[in-house]
């Protein structure tokens, strides 16, 4: 009862409402993209791209651009396109391409911040970007609007191109052979991935983004046979985890990102159990 009262008290604050709305929508679309990325063996792309976004943030800081998303967004999207479209060549394979890009971006970003930044609290800034500590609770209305808009766009694209996305994810060569413009859809998925990752950094920070992409997908795959079922259930799990994570973090005053990841882990373990019992 006391908990509910506490919630009722907190929910009246606009910043809490913003956090909930943004959290739900980001969770929703990152889980959809996550299913594709996991199946395409790009599980670590979230991690890699968030490092790139961190590099972008460093650039924005040094250039003193306050609307830092204007810098981060394009850089991350370009990196996503490079990775997803060309990261499957023979010489540099997907995971190693991600690893290289991530490390380079991280080193470059940290170097920039160290050399040029006159902010006294570098480690504090870095920590915030890495773990997202409280930034979800400092979102502006505009941030929330962008999150909601991008999420709805992602969902709309998934619904409209569902069949094609399935075909390409299941078997790229076959899809190409039957005349689907695979490159076009891959680019579309890459752009969405880049954008969602930048948005998700606000929610859980760049170190924990992988959890947002990977856990709902893997959890759903434990219990669902069909692609459609997996997608829908991943979205449900993801939203549930994000909502309860934000709630819990407010009540227990724990870091939002870490709390969400913990809940995802518990859900995953439960579903592995369910999957084992069923088969």
């Amino acid at each position: 009862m006391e908990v509910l009262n506490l919630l009722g008290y907190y929910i009246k604050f606009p910043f809490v409402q913003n956090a909930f709305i943004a959290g739900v929508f980001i969770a929703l679309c990152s889980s959809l993209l996550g299913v594709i990325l996991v199946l395409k063996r790009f599980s670590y792309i979230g991690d890699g791209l968030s490092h790139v976004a961190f590099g972008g943030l460093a650039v924005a800081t040094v250039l003193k651009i306050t609307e830092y998303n204007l810098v981060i967004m394009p850089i991350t999207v370009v990196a996503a396109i490079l990775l997803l479209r060309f990261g499957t060549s023979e010489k540099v394979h997907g995971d190693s391409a991600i690893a290289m890009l991530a490390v380079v971006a991280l080193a470059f970003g940290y170097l920039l911040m160290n050399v040029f930044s006159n902010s006294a609290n570098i480690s504090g800034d870095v920590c915030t970007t890495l773990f997202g500590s409280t930034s979800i609770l400092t979102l502006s209305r505009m941030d929330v609007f962008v999150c909601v808009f991008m999420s709805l766009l992602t969902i709309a694209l998934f619904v409209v191109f569902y069949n094609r996305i399935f075909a390409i994810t299941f078997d790229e060569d076959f899809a190409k052979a039957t005349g689907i413009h695979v490159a076009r859809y891959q680019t579309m998925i890459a752009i969405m991935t880049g954008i969602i990752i930048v948005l998700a950094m606000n929610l859980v920070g760049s170190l924990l983004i992988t959890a947002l992409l990977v856990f709902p997908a893997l959890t759903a795959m434990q219990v669902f046979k069909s692609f459609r079922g997996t997608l829908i259930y991943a979205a449900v799990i993801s939203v549930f985890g994000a909502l309860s994570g934000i709630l819990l973090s407010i009540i227990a005053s724990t870091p939002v990102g870490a709390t969400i990841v913990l809940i995802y882990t518990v859900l995953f373990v439960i579903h592995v159990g369910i999957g084992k019992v069923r088969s």
Partner: protein
Amino acid sequence: MAYILGRELAVGYNGKPVAENLNFKVNRGDYLCIVGMNGAGKSTLMKTLLSLINPVGGELKIGDGLEPHEIGYLPQQSDTQRDFPATVWEVALSGTITRNRRLMYSKAQKAYVERRLKELNIYNLKNESYRSLSGGQQQRTLLARALSATSKVLLLDEPVSGLDPNAMQQLYTITDELNQKGITIIMVTHDMAAIEHATHVLHVNKNKHFFGTKDEYLKSSHYKMFCELEADDNRSGKEIA
């Protein structure tokens, strides 16, 4: 005019040929086996026929009412698919995508896939998960998908490798039946038994290729080479007659 005509065709990657001077013809109703050593360029030729890559020389003509994307394809199983959550129905249905410009599957597409699944005796597995099927059942699912994409030409890349003898026999029975119904079959294979079913053989070999009817092939020096090659490959495997 033939369905597929290769004249002095060279296939390869980035402008560099893997196999050159290929001359062959595939007519409607043919059953062509493509054989050759590992690395000879068979899969590369397949990719070229599917327009996944461009020829690096010579010409490849597609005609007699066959459109470039009307070639059904049975790939070798890939790793990604091993834990992919998808039902047999979802996989098979995805073959029909380009039959219809609309975004959702039509009733006609669904009915078509239903018939393919029934033909291949896997309609009862319709709602089963693809990853939980046996190798032979997975292959039938992919076959249903390929046949949902086209009813003209079917390309199979080493379809029997990894199958047990029983499933192997069933696959040959299915392809024979399809061929009798008028579907053209092109099969890359390392299995000598497949030659029995073919009408034509293309033997891809670095120095000298062979293309001709099965009877011509069985008399050729290329056939002897193939026998020795397979005998080597199968030394620890099954006995070769």
